[in-house]
């Protein structure tokens, strides 16, 4: 039915926008989400039809104007989620149960993503530290071999291995000063990745 209302190009642009918005609204209950998307879509169809009839503009032109005015999917979802109250009805026990489940879910996902980010930050800082301290302790820092293969990647600090441990007994360090560019590169990559996880998860829970 939708296909007949607007052209294929316009339809594709609209579908793309709505699917992005749908993803951003995934914390809403499914029925609420569907209602909002259906409503926005219905209003857009109406506007396209009226604008086309009265001003003779092309569908894609009108659509771009509407979507620009709606705001980016992340802006629209942020508004909708931030203005959301507890939208479920029913008696107190039911509402409190749903509230608990939702908050537990948020806490759980938050815990997982924070833990993951923490581990990644840890290795990011470790790799940077490896690069920094390599000139002073070249024998204790780097990639080690062992008779069975991989002997570890990290720092030996007073006999304790910090990093990704491998088979014992550890053999020679094999990277030498190469650890400086490699450590800097890996370190910054991991810190960047951890920042992305933190920012994304904060956006996910921005209500």
């Amino acid at each position, binding site marked *: *039915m939708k296909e007949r209302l607007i052209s294929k190009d316009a339809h594709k642009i609209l579908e793309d926008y709505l699917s992005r918005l749908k993803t951003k609204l995934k914390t809403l209950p499914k029925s609420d989400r569907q209602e*909002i998307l259906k409503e*926005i879509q*219905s209003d857009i169809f109406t506007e396209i039809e009226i604008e086309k009839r009265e001003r003779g503009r092309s569908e894609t032109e009108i659509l771009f104007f509407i979507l620009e005015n709606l705001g980016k999917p992340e802006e629209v979802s942020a508004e*909708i989620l931030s203005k959301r109250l507890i939208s479920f009805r029913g008696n107190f026990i039911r509402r409190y149960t749903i509230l608990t489940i939702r908050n537990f879910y948020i806490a759980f996902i938050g815990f997982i993503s924070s833990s993951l980010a923490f581990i990644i930050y840890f290795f990011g800082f470790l790799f940077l530290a490896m690069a920094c301290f390599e000139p002073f302790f070249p024998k204790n820092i780097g990639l080690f071999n062992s008779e069975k293969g991989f002997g570890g990647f990290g720092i030996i600090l007073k006999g304790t291995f910090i990093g990704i441990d491998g088979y014992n007994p550890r053999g020679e360090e094999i990277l030498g000063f190469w650890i400086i560019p490699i450590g800097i590169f890996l370190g910054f990559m991991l810190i960047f990745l951890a920042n992305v996880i933190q920012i994304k998860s904060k956006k996910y829970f921005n209500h």
Partner: protein
Amino acid sequence: MNISKWNTQLRKGILEFCILSILEKENSYGYQIIQALSDFTGIDIKRGTIYALFKRLHEEEYIDYTWEESRSGPPRKIYSLTYEGKKILQGMKSHWTGFLGSVDKILKGGLR
């Protein structure tokens, strides 16, 4: 504080009041309300804000809606004012008049 930010904040604050006032006159669907509010929307206030407000007003049970078939396209979500909505709108109106009066007094008279 810059003037456009102040202007945006000011308009955002009375959007709900405007939406309820529009619905008091006539049951309407989103596009009609957005058109009526077109002086408000644009660069500063996105339409997304209005959809968010519909949702909030509905959750607070000030407005209700039904889906109605339309002749030319997909069904339309028609909003109407509830009894609670009418009550709060009356309250808003009297505050609004009082508010305009006192601001006007200050603008004209300053400390006097």
